[in-house]
């Protein structure tokens, strides 16, 4: 079962200070600050904050973005794709989250996140890569299954890019009560860190490589009775 660790990541936020409108904050042109390619521990990987303040409410969102390089695995078959993470014990509130398609990081993960990727580089309408899942308030490594859309996207160009969103953010649901939902994770390194993908991989038949016959044409190869005949072609 191969593991692929993150190649790019970003931790980004907007509000709650100065953000008095739910939609304007959620779909802002830019995040107010971000940290790229962090290996830090105990970062706020996602969150939603609503705080009744002075004559109105303030809204804050936190998201994290990840890019993975699948280029060594596009030829074969990927199954059981799983997103692995390790939470911390400092999370607060409701820790329901969702992973969704992200289109930032440039082609071939050649660019870092920039603040204008905050909303504009998330697929619209949202494309889920996972069901909603609860990140526990503990330090036990956990995982969530990614769907066939994620697998297809990973195979399409060899890169899988996704965003972690608090469910309130993902569902575009403006809560009527004050909350502070912050999901804290450890990130770790690009080689042995806490955020990585794992999956089962079946390499394509070696006949395709040897004879330049595509995988879908393997029946032609299989129809040949012996190596001698192949070599005589």
């Amino acid at each position, binding site marked *: 079962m191969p593991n692929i660790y993150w190649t790019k990541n970003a931790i980004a936020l907007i509000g709650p*200070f100065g953000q008095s409108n739910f939609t304007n904050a959620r779909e802002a042109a830019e995040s107010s600050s971000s940290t790229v390619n962090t290996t830090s521990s105990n970062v706020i990987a996602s969150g939603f904050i609503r705080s*009744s*303040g*002075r*004559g*109105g409410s*303030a809204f804050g969102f936190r998201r994290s973005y990840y890019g993975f390089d699948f280029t060594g695995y596009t030829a074969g078959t990927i199954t059981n794709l799983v997103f692995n993470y390790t939470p911390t014990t400092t999370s607060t509130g409701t820790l329901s989250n969702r992973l969704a398609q992200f289109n930032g990081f440039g082609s071939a993960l050649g660019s870092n996140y920039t603040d204008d990727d905050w909303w504009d580089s998330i697929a619209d309408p949202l494309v889920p890569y996972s069901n909603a899942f609860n990140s526990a308030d503990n330090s036990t490594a956990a995982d969530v299954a990614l769907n066939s859309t994620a697998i297809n996207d990973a195979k399409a160009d060899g890169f899988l890019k996704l965003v972690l969103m608090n469910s309130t953010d993902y569902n575009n649901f403006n809560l009527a009560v*004050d909350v502070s939902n912050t999901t804290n994770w450890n990130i770790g390194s690009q080689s042995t860190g806490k955020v990585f993908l794992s999956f089962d991989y079946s390499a394509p038949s070696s006949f395709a490589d040897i004879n330049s016959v595509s995988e879908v044409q393997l029946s032609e190869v299989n129809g040949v009775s012996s190596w001698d005949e192949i070599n005589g072609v």
Partner: protein
Amino acid sequence: MYTSKILSFNENKITYTDSNGEWEVMMDWEDPLMAASAAYVCEGGGDILEIGFGMGISATYIQSHTINSHTIIENHPDMILKAQAWAADKSNVTIVEGSWFDVKDTLSTYDGLFMDTYGDQDMDKFSTVLPSLMKAGGRATWWNSMSGSENYYGISDVTYDVYDINPPLNSYFNYNQYYLPKKQF
């Protein structure tokens, strides 16, 4: 819940801190806005209702006008103590403890009303309750967190006086103009 926060009373502001950082509740740069708000609700004199004591800036301005009574509702325990101390030498002041929504049925009607709360979980009910608290011809205003001639509560037939301001960066108001709402019943 705001009322469970431990407030920090500084010379020029009231703040509290939570996991998201430091939140300003009120700051002294608002002084001219408090003065103008007090002046408007006291234009007709009479009985004045103030919802939220804060730094006591508006309360002090209200006291500078000729009025009959001054009722102040405050729900934060730290603020209640401040309000009581401030009111100790003022014979026409009544401090009502609790949420304005919870005590609304115990109130009278008023010639002037200034609404300025923080962390108010009943804000959305203010526009419905407001008329029941006002005398005919009474004047009401409230802290307006919006950036133009509109108001959070959706109250109609409101006029606005515009004030140029230059607030320091803070957690609740960062515009350079304040639209003071004026509603007469």
